[in-house]
């Protein structure tokens, strides 16, 4: 049963990932990424990451992807020119990707870590539940939690400054930096 769920999630995640880079229209790429993220949330559930799976769907597939959809619709489809600055780029790039995968696969299967050849130890009830993760976040990892919240604030302010409409002058005219 677990195997079936794993392979279903793996096919969804891999298919979504390949669709992201293969589809010509950026809007469809965003939709393919949503499929990828939801499949990945299923895999997180198999790994007992209940809270991470829920956060993945709510934060990623929900909020972040809505942002992507809006920007893709605002910018429109960017048509990529057919000429390539590097000759043979479309053949070399997947080749390099495959080489990286082979290298990582050799490293993983050849590693002497014994724990990765098992399904992991039996964990107690509540492993990865919101209460367990919340407790860790607010006790052991409090500084990381606060730093992350500060970083989010800075990013939000930065995005408003970057993309905000300039008050003075015509917003559409090219402007000199202040």
């Amino acid at each position, binding site marked *: 049963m677990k195997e079936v769920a*794993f392979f279903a999630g*793996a096919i969804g*995640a*891999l298919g979504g*990932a*390949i669709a*992201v*880079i293969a589809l010509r229209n950026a809007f469809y*790429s965003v939709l393919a*990424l949503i499929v*990828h*993220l939801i499949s*990945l949330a299923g*895999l*997180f559930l198999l*790994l007992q*990451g209940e809270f*991470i799976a829920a*956060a993945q769907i709510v*934060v990623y597939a929900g*909020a*972040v992807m809505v*942002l*992507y959809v809006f*920007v893709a619709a*605002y910018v429109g489809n960017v048509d990529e*020119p057919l000429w390539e600055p590097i000759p043979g*780029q*479309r053949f070399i*790039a997947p080749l*390099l*990707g495959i080489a*990286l*995968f082979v290298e*990582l*696969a050799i490293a993983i299967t050849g590693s002497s870590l014994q*724990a*990765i*050849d*098992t399904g*992991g130890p*039996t964990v107690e009830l509540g*492993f*990865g539940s919101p209460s367990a*993760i919340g407790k*860790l*976040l607010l006790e052991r*990892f409090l500084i*990381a939690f606060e730093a*992350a919240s500060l*970083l*989010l604030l800075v*990013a939000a302010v930065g*995005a408003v400054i*970057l*993309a905000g409409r300039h008050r003075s002058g015509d*917003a*559409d005219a*090219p402007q000199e*930096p202040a």
Partner: protein
Amino acid sequence: MDITWYLVLSAMLFAVGVSGVLLRRSPLVILLCLELMLNAGNLALLAFSRSLGNQDGQVFALIVMVIAACEVVVGLGIIVAAYRRRIPLNVDDLRSLRG
């Protein structure tokens, strides 16, 4: 299910993301490929967290999600700003950092 399966899948997803960054020239799709790579890393973190029976890796994955959200917000802000200034959205043309 062995943890190795999850790690190999994570390596595969990461390689797909790398190929996407090398292949595509629209900054929006390149940001999507960065997401693919960050999520592959998250999958590996959760797999190791499960294999060790320790929840610290899950907290790590949560922080990675926060960093990814920040990166998306700033990256999309730059794309929107470039579009408003009629700068072509093609990474081959976006070579200079000067506004």
